[in-house]
């Protein structure tokens, strides 16, 4: 399944390619590239400040190495990957709309708050 999912021709492979391009764009702090595969509703939500903030947080994990398929929810057309960095990893969740455009892209990060 993982092999099939990583294949570029399958929906999961297409999703991974899109998730990877978005993650790279975020990491490189490129808002235009981030929105490239977003649907119309999602494009309106993106701001430069948000991309910059997330880029800074990803850079704290080190160099971006790529995505690894974890799972998918066919009903929601949602895919989960592990973004690997030189100093850690973070789960990336991608949801596609019926047209194959990105309807949601989220990265979950651990954050320690000092008391």
């Amino acid at each position: 399944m993982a092999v099939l999912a990583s294949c570029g021709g399958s929906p999961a492979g297409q999703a991974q390619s899109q998730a990877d391009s978005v993650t790279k764009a975020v990491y490189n702090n490129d808002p235009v590239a981030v929105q490239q595969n977003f649907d119309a509703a999602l494009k309106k939500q993106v701001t430069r400040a948000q991309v910059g903030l997330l880029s800074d947080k990803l850079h704290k994990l080190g160099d971006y190495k790529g995505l690894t398929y974890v799972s998918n929810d066919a009903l929601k057309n949602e895919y989960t990957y592990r973004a690997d960095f030189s100093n850690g990893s973070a789960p990336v969740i991608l949801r596609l709309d019926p047209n194959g455009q990105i309807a949601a892209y989220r990265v979950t990060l651990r954050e320690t708050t000092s008391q």
Partner: protein
Amino acid sequence: MTLKRAIAGTTMAAMLALAAPAPAAANGAASTRNILLGAGVATYLIIQHNRKVHEKYAEDARRQAALESQNSNMQAAYSSERSAYQNAAAEIVDLKREVAYQHSMIVQQRNQLAMQGGGFGTQARTTRVAAASMSPGPVSMVSYGWGQV
């Protein structure tokens, strides 16, 4: 009061002058008496003059004191005004600082609301780390991104 004193002094001097006998033609006692009376008149005039001078000096001194007091009050009033102005200026600086701080807080909260309103950064869950952990506080799992999953 001064007029009365002047009249009294002049009267006294006249009385003493009138009391002075004519130039002594005869004995030494009369001569001595005349000398004493003349000395008394001179002494009185000198004393009166000195008193007037001192009175004038005292009046000047009082006037000077009044002027000094007035000047002193003006200086005190100026000092008070200056102090009040400096306090007001310091209060304005404090108010500016307070407004700047409140503005920064508003901007910060507005940014947080903007991010959370778009669903960019939402706290997924917070877990308390174990006491043995090296982490200094609770660990939050924060989901960044766009759209809902």
